[in-house]
C-alpha cells in the first residue's frame, strides 16, 4: 500500500494546506514541504526495507475496482518507477522552494494544485493496470493546467488550453488503443482485463500491433515531446509559473519517456522494432530542430523549453536503438535532464522575480552584481551542453555510443546536436550575465542558494558516479526487457 500512501499523503496534504492557508496565512508552503518530505521519507524507508524492487517488478496492491470490466486498482514498483518517483518528489521540494515568494494570490489553492499534480504523476509511474494508468495520466493534467491557467504569465489561457487539448487528444487515441487491447484479450480468454502483465502475454497479429503501438506512441511522443508534436511545449513552459515549468520539464516530460519504455517497448516489442527507424529519425530531427530553434529565441524560458525538445530527442534515439548501453544512456539522460532543466527554470524564475522580464535582450552584465547566480547558471548551462563530469554528459555519451552500432548515420547527425547545445548554452549565458552592465540585481538568497546547490550537487554526484543509478538496472533490465527484444531482433535479422 506504500504507493497509495504516498499519493494520499500528497493529495490530502495539498487539501489541508489549501484549507489551513485560509485561516493561517503563510502556512501552506510549510505544510506542502512537510507533506512532500514525508512522502519522500516513506519511499526511501520502503526501498531500504525491500531491496528486491531493484531486481524485479514488485506488485504492491491489487484491489478489484470496476468488476464489470475486470479493472483493478493495481500498483507496483521497480527500479525504473522508483527512480522516477524519487525524482518527482525531489523536484516537488524544489517546486515548493521556488514558489516560496513568487506566488502571492490564492496561495492555498496553488499548493493544492501543485501537490495534486505530484500525486497524479506518482500514480502514473506506479500503476500496473492500464485503465488506472490512463486515469492517473488524465488526473495529473487537470491541476497542471490549473497551475498554468491561473498563476501563469501574460498568455496563460492560450498556453493552458493548447497544452490541455494536445495531451487530451493524444491520450484519447491511447484510450482507444487500451480498449482495443483489452477487447482482444477478452476475445482470446473470455474475461476482461486491463492488467499490464496479462496483456503483455497476448499474441497479436503484427498489423494490429503496429496500429495499437502507434496509438500509445503518439500519446507519449506528445508528452516527451518529439517533433512534430512539440508545439505545445514552448508555450506551456514559457507561460507557466516557475514551479510549473520545473514540474513540466523535470517530471511531466519524463512520463512520456516512461510510457515509451514501459508500454510501447514493453507491450509491443515487435511493432516497436518495425517502427524503430521512423522513431529514431524523429529523435534526430527533434535533437537538431530543438537546438536550432533554441538558438533563435530571445526569451530565457522559451530557449530552455526548446532545448528540452532537443534533449528528449536523445532519449527517443537511444530507446529505439534497442541496445543495452543506449538504454542506460536514456535512463541517465532522463534523470539528468530532469535535474538540469529544473535548475535552469528555477534560475529563470529567480531572474524573473528580480527583473520582471524573461527577455534576453534587456539582460546583460549581471555577473558583476550577482556572481554566485552567474556561477550557478554557468554550471547548469554546462550541464545542459554536456560538460564531462556532469551527468548529462554520461547520459548523452552512452546514448550515442550505444546507438552507433545500429544507426551510425543517425547518431552522427544527432551528435551535431551536442555542438548546437554548446552554442545556445553559451549564448544564453553570454546574453544574460556578460557584456555591458544593464542592471544591478541582488545575488542569491539562502533559500535560492539551497535549491541551486543541491541540484548542482546531484548533477555532479551522478555525473561522477553514474553507477549509483545504473547499478539498479543491470541484471533486471538485461534479462527481461531489453535482452528479449535484442534476441527477437537477431532472430528476425537471421530469418531475413
Amino acid at each position, binding site marked *: 500500500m506504500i504507493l497509495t500512501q504516498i499519493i494520499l499523503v500528497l493529495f490530502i496534504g495539498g487539501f489541508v494546506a489549501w484549507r489551513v492557508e485560509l485561516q493561517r496565512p503563510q502556512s501552506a508552503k510549510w505544510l506542502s514541504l512537510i507533506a512532500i518530505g514525508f512522502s519522500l521519507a516513506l519511499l526511501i524507508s520502503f526501498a531500504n526495507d525491500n531491496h528486491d524492487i531493484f531486481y524485479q517488478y514488485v506488485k504492491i496492491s491489487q484491489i478489484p475496482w470496476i468488476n464489470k470490466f475486470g479493472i483493478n486498482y493495481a500498483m507496483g514498483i521497480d527500479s525504473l518507477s522508483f527512480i522516477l518517483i524519487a525524482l518527482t518528489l525531489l523536484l516537488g521540494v524544489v517546486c515548493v522552494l521556488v514558489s516560496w515568494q513568487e506566488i502571492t494570490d490564492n496561495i492555498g489553492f496553488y499548493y493544492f494544485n501543485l501537490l495534486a499534480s505530484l500525486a497524479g504523476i506518482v500514480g502514473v509511474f506506479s500503476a500496473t493496470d492500464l485503465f488506472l494508468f490512463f486515469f492517473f495520466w488524465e488526473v495529473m493534467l487537470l491541476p497542471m493546467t490549473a497551475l498554468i491557467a491561473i498563476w501563469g504569465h501574460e498568455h496563460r489561457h492560450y498556453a493552458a488550453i493548447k497544452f490541455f487539448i494536445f495531451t*487530451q487528444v493524444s491520450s484519447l487515441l491511447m484510450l482507444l488503443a487500451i480498449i482495443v487491447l483489452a477487447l482482444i484479450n477478452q476475445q482470446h480468454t473470455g474475461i476482461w482485463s486491463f492488467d499490464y502483465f496479462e496483456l503483455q502475454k497476448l499474441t497479436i497479429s503484427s498489423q494490429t500491433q503496429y496500429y495499437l503501438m502507434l496509438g500509445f506512441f503518439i500519446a507519449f511522443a506528445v508528452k516527451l515531446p518529439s517533433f512534430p508534436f512539440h508545439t505545445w511545449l514552448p508555450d506551456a513552459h514559457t507561460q507557466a509559473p516557475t514551479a510549473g515549468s520545473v514540474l513540466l520539464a523535470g517530471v511531466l516530460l519524463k512520463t512520456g519517456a516512461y510510457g515509451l519504455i514501459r508500454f510501447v517497448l514493453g507491450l509491443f516489442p515487435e511493432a516497436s522494432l518495425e517502427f524503430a527507424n521512423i522513431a529514431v529519425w524523429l529523435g534526430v530531427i527533434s535533437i537538431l530542430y530543438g537546438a536550432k530553434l533554441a538558438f533563435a529565441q530571445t526569451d530565457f524560458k522559451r530557449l530552455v523549453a526548446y532545448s528540452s525538445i532537443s534533449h528528449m530527442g536523445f532519449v527517443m534515439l537511444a530507446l529505439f536503438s534497442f541496445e543495452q548501453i543506449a538504454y542506460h544512456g536514456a535512463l541517465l539522460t532522463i534523470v539528468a535532464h530532469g535535474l538540469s532543466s529544473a535548475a535552469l527554470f528555477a534560475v529563470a524564475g529567480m531572474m524573473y522575480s528580480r527583473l520582471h522580464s524573461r527577455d534576453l535582450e534587456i539582460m546583460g552584465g549581471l555577473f558583476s552584481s550577482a556572481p554566485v547566480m552567474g556561477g550557478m547558471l554557468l554550471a547548469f548551462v554546462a550541464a545542459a551542453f554536456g560538460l564531462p563530469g556532469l551527468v548529462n554528459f554520461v547520459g548523452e555519451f552512452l546514448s550515442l555510443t550505444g546507438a552507433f552500432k545500429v544507426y551510425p548515420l543517425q547518431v552522427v547527425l544527432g551528435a551535431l546536436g551536442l555542438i548546437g547545445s554548446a552554442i545556445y548554452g553559451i549564448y544564453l549565458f553570454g546574453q544574460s550575465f556578460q557584456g555591458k552592465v544593464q542592471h544591478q540585481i541582488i545575488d542569491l538568497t539562502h533559500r535560492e542558494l539551497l535549491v541551486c546547490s543541491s541540484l548542482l550537487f546531484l548533477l555532479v554526484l551522478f555525473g561522477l558516479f553514474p553507477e549509483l543509478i545504473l547499478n539498479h538496472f543491470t541484471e533486471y533490465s538485461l534479462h527481461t526487457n531489453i535482452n528479449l527484444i535484442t534476441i527477437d531482433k537477431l532472430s528476425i535479422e537471421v530469418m531475413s
Partner: protein
Amino acid sequence: MSSFELLAISPQLIISLAIVLQMLLIAFKRSTRLIQSFTFICILLAIASSVFSLPALNSQITLLFYLDGFSFSIVNTILFCSAMVVLVSGNYLTISHEVHDEYYLLVMLVTLGALILSISDHFASVFLGLELLSIAVIGLVGYLRDRRQTLEASFKYLILSATASSILLLGMAMLYAYSGDMSFTYIEANLDNSTANSKLFAQAGSILLLVGIAFKLSLAPFHFWTPDVYQGAPAPVTMLLATVSKIAMFSVLIKFWFLSEQFLDQVMLTIISLIAVASMLVGNLLALKQNNIKRLLAYSSIAHMGYLLIILPVLSTSSIEFAKQSVLFYLTAYAVATLILFTFIAETSKSNSSSDLDNWHNWQGLFWLSPIQASAIILALLSLAGIPLSMGFIGKFYLITSALTNQSWLLLASLVVGSSIGLYYYLRIIFIMFAKHIPNGANAYDLSINSSLSHILLFSLTMILLAFGIYPDIYIFL
C-alpha cells in the same frame, strides 16, 4: 387487463392520477407552495412504486407497452430529472406575484408523456406519448409570456415540433401500410413475403420516422430550433427539455432501431452514421463561438446526442445488450451534469427579469466567490467533456468500448475530433470562472445562492457524478 399489468405501469398510473388531483387542487386552493410540494411528493411516490413493476420485467403489458430493464431504468431517470426540475422551479418562480399552479401541471404532463414513451412498444403509444410531451412543452417554453424571447422560442418550437410530429406520423403510416402491424416488432411478421417494391416503401417509412425522432433529439441537420428554444425558455424548462424529453426520445430511438432490426439495413446505417458525424461536428463547432451558456449547452447537447448514436451500428445481436447499457450510463451521466448546470442557472436567475443570467461573463471569477458551487459546475463541465473522476468519462468509456466492439471506425474518428473541439469551449468556461473577479455590485449579488435547498441539490448531484465516476460498479443494469 390484469392486476399484474396494472402494477407494472404503476409509475405512469400514479402520475396520471396526480395530474387529475392537481386540477382538483387548483380548484380547491391556489397556492404555489402547496402544489409544488404535492407534485414533488407524487413524483417520489411514482419512483417508489416502480418497485411494483419489477416482477413484470421483460413482459408485454397490453398491446401498447413492453417493460424491460432498459425502460425501467429510463423511467426512473426521467422521474428523477422531473423531481429535480420541480424542486428547482420553486425559487425561480416565487419571485413574481402570480400563482403558478398550471406550471406544475404542465411539468407533470411532460413527465407523463416521457414515461409513456419510455415503455411504449407500439406506434400508437409512441405518438400518444410524444404529443402529450410536445404540447405540454410548448406551453412551458412560452410560460413567461412577458419575455420576448420566450414567445419567439415557443412559436418556433410549436411549428417545428408539429412538423416533426406529422413527418413521424407519415412514417408510421407507411410502415403500417407495408406490414399491417403497428408494433415495433412488425418486421418479424414480414420478413419473407415482401417484394422489393414494398421493401423500398418500408425503408422510406423508416427514414421518415427517423427524421421525426432526429427533430426531437435535435440531431444535425434537424437542430436549428435547439439554441433558440434553449435560450428563450425559462431555465427550469430548458432543464426539463434537455433531460426528460431527450432521454425519452432516445429510448424510443433505441427501441425502434433494435426491435425492428434497422441495424441490418445498409441504407439506414449510412443515414444514421451521417447524422451522427454531422451532429458531433456541427454541435461542437457551433458551440465554439457562443458566449451565452444556454446556447452553448444547446449546441453541446447536439454533439452529445451525436456521440450517443455511435452505439447504433451493431455487428451482431449479442452486442445489443452492451449497447443499451452504454446508452443508459451515458444518458444518466449527461442528465446529471446538465441538471447541475441548469440548477445553477435557474437558481441565479429570476423569472421576473427580462432574461436569465446566462451570459458567461456573469460567471467571471465565480470560483473565488463561491468555491463549492463553482467546483460543482466545473465537475459537471469536466463530466460533459469526458475527463476522468467524473461519470461522463465512464460513459464515454462505455460508448468507445461499444463502438470498438462493432468496429465503427468513422464514428470513432469523429468522436475523437468532436470531443477535442469540445474541450476547448468547456475549458473556456472553466477559465472564465478562474479569472479575476470583477466586483461590480449587481454581479456579486446575483451570483450568490442563498437558498439552502439549492446548495443541497448541487451538492448531492455532484456527489452522484463523482460516485459513479469513481466507482461505476454501483450502477446496476437490470
